[in-house]
C-alpha cells in the first residue's frame, strides 16, 4: 500500500513536470521565416490560369510561404511552443534583409529556425521533391543538430500523399549542395545561432503543385507537418490531435487544363467544388469542407481527436464515395479519392471535321480528322475503332479531357486523293457504353504538300556579326504567327539557346510578296564561336502546311568591325551631306542618304541608304556604263573623298555593309586613268571595272571585300600595272534575286583600300584556286598571254616557270601543300542566358550576378580563355585584377551562362 502511494506521488510529480512543459515554461522557441515577400523582383511568381503575370492574387512563393508560416505558428502555439515570425504581411516592408532576419532570430533566443521556401527548376524540365538544407558541409553542420532538424522535418513532409513526388526527399549541407559557393552558404543561415535549416517544401513551378500551393488547406498541412518535425526533433509526443488531408481526382479523365508537364496521378482531372463530409462511424456528420475551384482537389480536416472516422465525398457529376480513416495523435493521415463520373447515355459524335462533300474545294494535305463526343471516351477502344482509306500512317491526340479525338497524318496526305474515314461501333466512352452506329466521313486533298523556303539567314557556313544579329525565314506563303519561337531555335556550341528580342520581331502581312519572320537576337555572340540555327519541320504557314524537313544551318560569329591596320580608310561615311547623286544616272527613282548613329561600326555615324529596288541589275550596269539614265532608276552617288581617291591595280576595296536581306547589289565604279587595258575592245568595258560587293542577302554588319567584274558581267581582276580612279558607289537589283523587294535600307561604314590578299595558287585573282589558274599559267608559258595573270610567280623566284604550275597543283591537292591556314578559334563563349544578369560593367571592385535560380558560383576567364579566378556565391572580387575585358561564367543550379564584362579601376 505504501509502495502504491510512493508510486502515485511520483506519478503526480512527473505529471506536474510535463504539464509545466506543456504550459510553455521550458518549451522551445521557434523562429519562423516565411521566405521572400513583397511580390517584387526577389519574389517568385508563377503564372497559372486564370491569373495574369504579376497578379498578386495568383501564385507567388511569398504567399504560400506565409500561409505555411501562419499554420506552423498556430500549430506550435497550440502545442505550447513560443514562436517568432519574421513577417505576417506580404508587402515590400515586410521583406526583410537577410542580415536582419539572422539578427532577429539570434536576438529572439530561438532554439530552432525554419526558413520556409519552395523550389523551382528554372528550366523547361520539371520535378517535384523536397529539399532540406542546413549550414555547413553535409554531415557536419556549423550549428550542431541542424542536420537532425532537417531530417525530422523531411520525413514528415515526405508523407504528403496529396502531392505527386518525382523522387524522395534530399538533405544536404549548403556548403556541399553549392560546392562552388566557397562556403558562403545561404544568407539566412549564415551567422544564425539557432539550430537552423531552410526547407524547399516542393517545386512551385511544377504546375499541378503550383495549383495545390494556392490551396489554404494544403499549405496548412505543410505547416502542421513542420510542427510534427519540431516535435520529433525535441522528442515530444504529448499533443493529442491529428489531421487528415487528401486529393480528390477523376478516376480516368485527363486534366482539362493541361498545357504543362505532369507526373503520375497529376495527369487526371482534380475534382473542384466537391463537398467532403467527416462522419463518425454511425454516419453522423462531424464536419464539412470543400475542394476549391483552383484545380487541385485538396481537402483537409484539422486538429482531430484520434479515432476512426468516415469521409464521404459528393460532387454532382460524380458517384459519391466513402472511405474509413483512422486518425492518430501527432500524425498526418492522407486519404485520396478517385471518383467515377456519372455517364448515363451512349457515346455520340456531336461534331467533326473536315466536313467535305463531293464538289467542294479540295482540302490541304495535312488536314487533321477531328471527332468531338458527348462523353469523355475510352481512348484505347476508340483509337482501335478508327479506320482511314487509303491507309495513312498517323497519330492520335486527345484533347478536352478525352472529349475530342484528333488524328493527324505523320506526313502530309497524298495530293489529289479521296480519303474515307470510319469510326466503327467498338468505340466506347469512359463508362463502357459503345457507339450505336458507325460514323463515316470523306475528304479530298489538294495539290500543295509542303511549305517552301525562299531563303534563310544565316545561311549554312555564313559569318555573322556577333552583335545585334537578326535571323530570318522567308517562305512562299504567310507563316503561322503562333508559337514560332520554339520552332526557330538559335543555340551556341554547348546547345544553350540564345534569347530573342521578341518585341521587335517582324512578321509578314498579307500585303507582302512572301511570308517571313525576322527575329532580332538579344544575346551577344562570341566572335569565333560556331552557332546553330534550327528551324523545325513543324514551322507552318497559316494553312498549317509545314516544312518538308527540319533545317539546320551552322554559322560562325565574327566581329565585322575588327580593325584592319594595314588598310587605308577612303571614306568613313560620317557625314551624309558630303554625298551627292550622279545626276546622269539617277533619274528620279533614286533613294535617299542619311547619317545613322544607331547602327555603326566606326566613328559616330554610318551612312544609311534607302533605295527603291525596281530596276534590274543588267539595266543598271548598262546605264552606268553608257551614262544613259533612260535605262536607269539605279542609284549612283559619290562624295568628295570617294571621287578624289584612286586605287592601284594590286590593291582591293573593302566595305562594311549593314544588310537588310533586300538582295540589292552594292558596287563601286572605277575608271582607268591611262586607258592601257589588257584587252583593247571595247575599251569602255575594261577601262571601267567594278568592285562588286555582292548581293545583300544578309542582315547586320558584314565586312566584304569586293570582287572585280566588268560591265560585261565577266569576273576578272584589275590590271596590276594601272591606277584607277574611284568614281562612285551604286546600287542595283540582282537579276537572280529570288524575290523582288520594293525598298531597301542598307548602311555603309568605312570604305577601305589595301593590298590585294594573295591567295596561294590564285593565279587569276578571282579569290579561289581552280583548274582555270593552271590554264592561265599554261597560256602564259605557251602563248605569252598574261591578260589574266595576277599572281603567276608562285615560288617567288621572279619568273613564271613550270614549277609554278606544280605549286598550283599542290594547292589544289590539299592543305598540306600551302593552302591558307584556318583562322584560330577564340575560347570565350557567348552570353547564353539573358535571365542571368551581371554587373556593373565596367567594375572596379565586385562583379555581381543575379538569377531567378540559385547561383552556385562564378568563374572569370580572360579573353584567351584562361581561368583567372573562381569564387563561390554570386560575386567575384576583381579589386586586384588587371583592367581589361573578361568573360564571367555564372553557374546556376540548372545552367551555365557566360557574360562579357570589363574590369576598370
Amino acid at each position, binding site marked *: 500500500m505504501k509502495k502504491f502511494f510512493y508510486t502515485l506521488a511520483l506519478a503526480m510529480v512527473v505529471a506536474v513536470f510535463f504539464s509545466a512543459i506543456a504550459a510553455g515554461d521550458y518549451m522551445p522557441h521557434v523562429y519562423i521565416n516565411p521566405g521572400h515577400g513583397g511580390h517584387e523582383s526577389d519574389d517568385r511568381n508563377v503564372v497559372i490560369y486564370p491569373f495574369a503575370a504579376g497578379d498578386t492574387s495568383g501564385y507567388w512563393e511569398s504567399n504560400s510561404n506565409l500561409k505555411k508560416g501562419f499554420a506552423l505558428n498556430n500549430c506550435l502555439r497550440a502545442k505550447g511552443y513560443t514562436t517568432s515570425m519574421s513577417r505576417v504581411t506580404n508587402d515590400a516592408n515586410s521583406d526583410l534583409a*537577410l542580415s536582419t532576419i539572422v539578427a532577429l532570430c539570434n536576438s529572439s533566443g530561438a532554439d530552432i529556425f525554419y526558413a520556409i521556401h519552395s523550389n523551382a527548376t528554372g528550366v523547361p524540365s520539371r520535378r517535384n521533391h523536397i529539399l532540406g538544407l542546413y549550414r555547413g558541409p553535409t554531415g557536419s553542420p556549423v550549428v550542431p543538430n541542424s542536420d537532425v532538424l532537417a531530417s525530422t522535418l523531411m520525413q514528415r513532409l515526405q508523407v504528403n500523399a496529396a502531392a505527386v513526388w518525382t523522387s524522395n526527399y534530399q538533405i544536404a549541407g549548403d556548403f556541399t549542395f553549392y560546392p562552388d559557393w566557397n562556403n558562403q552558404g545561404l544568407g539566412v543561415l549564415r551567422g544564425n545561432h539557432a539550430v537552423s535549416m531552410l526547407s524547399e517544401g516542393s517545386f512551385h513551378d511544377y504546375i499541378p503543385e503550383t495549383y495545390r500551393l494556392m490551396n489554404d488547406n494544403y499549405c496548412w498541412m505543410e505547416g502542421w507537418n513542420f510542427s510534427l518535425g519540431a516535435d520529433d526533433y525535441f522528442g515530444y509526443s504529448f499533443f493529442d490531435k491529428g489531421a487528415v488531408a487528401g486529393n480528390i481526382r477523376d478516376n480516368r479523365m485527363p486534366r482539362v487544363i493541361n498545357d504543362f508537364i505532369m507526373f503520375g496521378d497529376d495527369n487526371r482531372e482534380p475534382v473542384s467544388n466537391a463537398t467532403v463530409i467527416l462522419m463518425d462511424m454511425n454516419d453522423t456528420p462531424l464536419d464539412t469542407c470543400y475542394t476549391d475551384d483552383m484545380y487541385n482537389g485538396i481537402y483537409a480536416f484539422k486538429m482531430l481527436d484520434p479515432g476512426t472516422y468516415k469521409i464521404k465525398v459528393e460532387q454532382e457529376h460524380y458517384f459519391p464515395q466513402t472511405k474509413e480513416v483512422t486518425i492518430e495523435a501527432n500524425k498526418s493521415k492522407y486519404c485520396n479519392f478517385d471518383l467515377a463520373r456519372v455517364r448515363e447515355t451512349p457515346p455520340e459524335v456531336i461534331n467533326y471535321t473536315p466536313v467535305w462533300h463531293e464538289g467542294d474545294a479540295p482540302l490541304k494535305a495535312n488536314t487533321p480528322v477531328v471527332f468531338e463526343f458527348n462523353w469523355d471516351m475510352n481512348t484505347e477502344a476508340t483509337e482501335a475503332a478508327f479506320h482511314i482509306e487509303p491507309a495513312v500512317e498517323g497519330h492520335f491526340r486527345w484533347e478536352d479531357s478525352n472529349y475530342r479525338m484528333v488524328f493527324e497524318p505523320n506526313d502530309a496526305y497524298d495530293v489529289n486523293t479521296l480519303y474515307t474515314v470510319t469510326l466503327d461501333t467498338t468505340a466506347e466512352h469512359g463508362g463502357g457504353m459503345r457507339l450505336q452506329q458507325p460514323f463515316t466521313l470523306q475528304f479530298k486533298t489538294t495539290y500543295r504538300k509542303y511549305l517552301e523556303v525562299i531563303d534563310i539567314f544565316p545561311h549554312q557556313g555564313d559569318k555573322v556579326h556577333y552583335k545585334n544579329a537578326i535571323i530570318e525565314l522567308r517562305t512562299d506563303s504567310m507563316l503561322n504567327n503562333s508559337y514560332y519561337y520554339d520552332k526557330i531555335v538559335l543555340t551556341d556550341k554547348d546547345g544553350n539557346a540564345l534569347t530573342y528580342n521578341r518585341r521587335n520581331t517582324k512578321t509578314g502581312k498579307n500585303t507582302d510578296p512572301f511570308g517571313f519572320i525576322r527575329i532580332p537576337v538579344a544575346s551577344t555572340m562570341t566572335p569565333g564561336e560556331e552557332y546553330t540555327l534550327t528551324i523545325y519541320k513543324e514551322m507552318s504557314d497559316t494553312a498549317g502546311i509545314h516544312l518538308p524537313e527540319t533545317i539546320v544551318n551552322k554559322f560562325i560569329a565574327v566581329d565585322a568591325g575588327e580593325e584592319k591596320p594595314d588598310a587605308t580608310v577612303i571614306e568613313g561615311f560620317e557625314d551624309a551631306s558630303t554625298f551627292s547623286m550622279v545626276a546622269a544616272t539617277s533619274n528620279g527613282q533614286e533613294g535617299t542618304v542619311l547619317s545613322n548613329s544607331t547602327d555603326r561600326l566606326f566613328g559616330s555615324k554610318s551612312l544609311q541608304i534607302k533605295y527603291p529596288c525596281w530596276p534590274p541589275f543588267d539595266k543598271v550596269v548598262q546605264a552606268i556604263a553608257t551614262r544613259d539614265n533612260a535605262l536607269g532608276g539605279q542609284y549612283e552617288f559619290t562624295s568628295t573623298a570617294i571621287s578624289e581617291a584612286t586605287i592601284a591595280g594590286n590593291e582591293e576595296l573593302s566595305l562594311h555593309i549593314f544588310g537588310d536581306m533586300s538582295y540589292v547589289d552594292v558596287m563601286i565604279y572605277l575608271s582607268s586613268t591611262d586607258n592601257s587595258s589588257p584587252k583593247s575592245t571595247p575599251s569602255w568595258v575594261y577601262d571601267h571595272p567594278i568592285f562588286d560587293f555582292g548581293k545583300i542577302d544578309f542582315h547586320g554588319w558584314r565586312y566584304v571585300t569586293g570582287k572585280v567584274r566588268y560591265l560585261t558581267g565577266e569576273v576578272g581582276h584589275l590590271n596590276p600595272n594601272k591606277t584607277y580612279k574611284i568614281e562612285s558607289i551604286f546600287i542595283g537589283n540582282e537579276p537572280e534575286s529570288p524575290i523582288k523587294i520594293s525598298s531597301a535600307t542598307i548602311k555603309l561604314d568605312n570604305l577601305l583600300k589595301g593590298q590585294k590578299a594573295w591567295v596561294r595558287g590564285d593565279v587569276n585573282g578571282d579569290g579561289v584556286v581552280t583548274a582555270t589558274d593552271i590554264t592561265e599559267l599554261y597560256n602564259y608559258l605557251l602563248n605569252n598571254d598574261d591578260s589574266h595573270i595576277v599572281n603567276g610567280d608562285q615560288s617567288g623566284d621572279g619568273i613564271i616557270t613550270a614549277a609554278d604550275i606544280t605549286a598550283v597543283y599542290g594547292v589544289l591537292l590539299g592543305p598540306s601543300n600551302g593552302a591558307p591556314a584556318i583562322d584560330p578559334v577564340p575560347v570565350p563563349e557567348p552570353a547564353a542566358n539573358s535571365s542571368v544578369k551581371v554587373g556593373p560593367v565596367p567594375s572596379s571592385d565586385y562583379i555581381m550576378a543575379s538569377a531567378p535560380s540559385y547561383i552556385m558560383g562564378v568563374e572569370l576567364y580572360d579573353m584567351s580563355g584562361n581561368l583567372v579566378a573562381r569564387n563561390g556565391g554570386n560575386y567575384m572580387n576583381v579589386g586586384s585584377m588587371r583592367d581589361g575585358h573578361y568573360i564571367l561564367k555564372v553557374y546556376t543550379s540548372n545552367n551555365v551562362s557566360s557574360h562579357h564584362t570589363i574590369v576598370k579601376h
Partner: protein
Amino acid sequence: MKKTLLLLMWAWAMIAGAQQVTVTSSTPLLRGIEPAFYPTLSPSGDRLLYSDADAHGLKMLDLATSKVATISEERGAGFDAKWSNDGHVYYVTSMVDEKSRLVYRTGKRYDLSRQVSDVVLEPQHGAVHLESGAAGMAMHGDKRSFSTSPKRGVSVYTTGSQLVVNINGKENRYTPVESYAGYLWASVSPAGDKVAFFAAGRGIVVTTLQGKVLAELGNYEMPCWFNNDYIVAQNASDDGYQYTSSQILLLKADGTWRHELTPKTSMTMQPTAGGGKIAYTTIDGNLTVITIDINQ
C-alpha cells in the same frame, strides 16, 4: 508664414547639402591572414573585435601593433560582443544541450589585463541581451540577469518590439514605431542624449531618451554612432538567398543628409565606429578601417 517656413527649410537643406566628406585614410586589415567579420571598434578606436562568418569565436586586433589575441573560440561569441566602459569585453556564447536539444546561452567577460574570460551569467535557455552604458554593463536573460552596477548611466537594448532605456537604474520601455518583427542594434549617442535603433520593416530610427521619434533615416541596417551627429549604417540588398549589393552609408542623425562612403557594388558590410574611425568588412571578410573628414 508657410512660405517663409518652406524657404527656410530649403535654405537649410542647401546648407546641409553642401557638406562634403573626405576619406582621409583607408587601411586594409588582416589581409592574407584571415577573413574577419562582425568588427567592433573600441570606444577609443585603438582595438577591434572580430569573428568568423558565423560569428563563432572572438578575436581582438590591436590596431597599433597588429597583434591578435583570441578571446573565445565558442559559438556565437562574435555576434553581439560589446566593449564596456572599463575596457573589458562582454559577449554571449551559445551551445545546444545534447539532451533537451534546447539552445543555452552563457554571458562572459574578457578581462584585458588578465587575458582570460570569466562566466558572468550562467548558461540559460532563451534570449540574452547586452546593455552597455557609460557607467556599467548589463546582460538580461529570460531567466537570470547580470549587471556591473545598478546605475550604469544611460544604456539601451531592444527586446522584441520594445526599446528599453535605462537611465541610472530606472528602466523604461518604449515602442516608438510599429514593427511586427522587432527592433535591433540599439545604441546611445556619444553625448548620451539620443538613441538610434533599427526597426524591422521601417529602418533606422533616432529618438530621445524618452522614446520620442526625432528622425527616421531610411531602411538601412546596423546603425552605429560615428559622433553625436552622424551615424554609420549598412545598405544591403539580396535576392532572398544571397546578397546582391551592400555598401556603407554615413547618415546625419537628423535625417537631412546621407553620403555613400562606399559604392553599392563594393559589397562592404557590418560597419562599426569608435574613436573617430570607421571599420567595415566585405562579404568575403576583407576588413578595412578608414578615417573621414566631414566638411560642415
